[in-house]
């Protein structure tokens, strides 16, 4: 193929879309030059508001809001991307998911993944953020080093750990030297440990990120409260349990829920690290919801069923987010 990424795909529809956007920009310039100066300020503000948000509004509508509605629609259809017929089949897709053992397993695995990863990463990064409050020098350097895994792509991280967990890798070697039998020491090939081995990598790689979020929360606590407590002779533990912990609580809840959502959405690392070429092996023990959706849609080509599973996935995330909103609306008590 002689085409590169830059020249391919300039078909008529794309050119039509580009011309559309270009004409919006032209209209904006024309209005600005000839129409706007004649209007009163109040009308002008209205007009400019609409000019400025015209393209973003179209984008949000077409790329983010309509597809969401389309997802609901597909979930009630028998939809294969290759066939032109897509008849409505009521709740058949949902009934299929309800009866599917694999989908049930995917939901359970997703929650197992989250329940292992979240407490681990939250506790470690909270401790780390508190340690950062104590030190004065080399803060930036340490923070950068800690953020390294978070800034690396999950694909690269996944392969590094595929290596470390493998028969030739360092982690396997250490476990073997600790006297663990070989079959159990190959963490990602063992049905019982594979999911947690991946969750561990995910937790480890985001410690730096969550530490930063906690640091933002800790910095928001006014210095005077600490000074007052110190003058009163409060011990470190008292300061932590009576001041830091209660005041940090709202951001702790918020960050935990962010972490839960992020864990449920994790796709890349699981795809790279799960066995049988990233299809959730061994024996579906690392099959999580995003992976299930991906495989249903793009290897088994059941867009309808995949859409139905995304709706279920969305409802789960929605419930969690609503809980988050409810919790954060509680007043902060000083």
């Amino acid at each position, binding site marked *: 193929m002689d085409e590169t990424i830059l020249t391919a795909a300039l078909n008529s529809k794309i050119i039509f879309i580009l011309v559309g956007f270009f004409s919006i920009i032209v209209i904006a310039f024309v209005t600005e030059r000839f129409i706007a100066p004649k209007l009163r300020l109040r009308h002008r*503000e209205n007009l400019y508001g609409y000019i400025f948000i015209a393209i973003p509004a179209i984008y949000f509508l077409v790329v983010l809001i309509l597809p*969401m509605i389309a997802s609901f629609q597909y979930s009630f259809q028998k939809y294969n991307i290759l066939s032109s017929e897509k008849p409505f089949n009521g709740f058949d897709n949902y009934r299929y998911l309800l009866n599917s053992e694999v989908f049930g397993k995917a939901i359970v695995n997703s929650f197992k993944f989250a329940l292992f990863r979240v407490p681990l990463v939250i506790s470690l990064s909270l401790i780390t953020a508190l340690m950062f409050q104590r030190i004065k020098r080399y803060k930036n350097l340490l923070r950068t080093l800690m953020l390294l895994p978070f800034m690396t792509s999950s694909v690269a991280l996944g392969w590094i750990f595929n290596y470390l967990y493998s028969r030739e890798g360092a982690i396997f070697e250490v476990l073997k030297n600790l006297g663990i039998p070989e079959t159990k020491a190959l963490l990602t090939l063992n049905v019982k440990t594979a999911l947690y081995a991946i969750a561990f990598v995910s937790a480890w790689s985001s410690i730096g990120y969550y530490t930063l979020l906690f640091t933002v929360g800790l910095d928001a606590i006014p210095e005077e409260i600490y000074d007052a407590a110190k003058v009163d002779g409060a011990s470190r533990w008292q300061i932590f349990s009576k001041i830091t912990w209660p005041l940090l609580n709202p951001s702790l809840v918020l960050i935990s829920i962010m972490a839960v959502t992020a864990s449920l959405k994790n796709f890349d690392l699981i795809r790279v690290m799960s066995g049988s070429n990233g299809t959730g092996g061994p024996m579906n023990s690392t099959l999580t919801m995003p992976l299930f959706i991906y495989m249903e849609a793009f290897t088994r080509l059941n867009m309808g069923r995949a859409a139905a599973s995304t709706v279920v996935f969305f409802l789960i995330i929605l419930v969690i987010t609503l809980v988050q909103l409810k919790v954060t609306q509680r007043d902060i008590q000083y």
Partner: protein
Amino acid sequence: MNKRKRLQFFVANHRSDIIGQSFAYIWLIGLCLTTIFPFFWMVSTSFKPKFEILFHRLLPQAPTIENYINVLTRWQYGTWFFNSVVVTTITVVVSVFFCSLCGYALAKFRFKGSKLFFILILSTIMVPGEMLIIPWYVNAFKLRIVNTLPGVVFPGLMGAFGVFVMRQAFLNIPNELIDAARVEGASELSIFIKIILPITTGSMSALAVLTALGTWNEYLWPLIIMSSVDRFTLQLGMMHASVTDATRELITNWSVIMTSTTIASLPMLIMVIFLQKYFVKGIALSGLN
């Protein structure tokens, strides 16, 4: 407190401070060692000849660049790198500009429906990307942009998070500044481009760095939309190369795979370390919502 007591308090406090600080340093340095080690191991392995993989030594005994020659001649890392650069550049430029435009309108113009529009944008944060990929793919298929540049960039061109961050930045700009420019007779577009954008470069850079990192590391959407090897982004290409290399020999040649991961991850890592300031600022901004 009398003088003596105060002195005691100070000394006790100081001593526990030193113990506390050294404990903190031990914890943090220990943690940093665990985050550096895999990368160190990756780079070190990439210089090891094949037979040395089994020895588990920290540094290669007989360092060689044979793996690099091997990987770079067999795989099109140049093309993949170029594709990633193109995709990331387009996404960052478009996204930062339109997020600023939208954020500015929402922050500074009072027009009918602006609140509703803002709420609508924010509500898209809740929608997981997994839910949208199926309609995206179906429509890309209909538009015949599967396996093309427009196909791979269109989902990332704007986001609620970017609009939110930029709106927050514009809210901090005093209205008097804009009014003064209006009195001078400047048009709204030129106010936005010549006056407003230059004073919000901090937030814009933070958003740009976060967007660039996200786009560069994106795996799921390119995986779905790109099908021919010469259109792959770096992440896809690396995955493709590693999967093929891993199954090529009886004992996996990890030094070749680690060479791939090094080539794919090191350039961006080095760049982000230099832009770390903006990255940290971006995360701090994201913690606000």
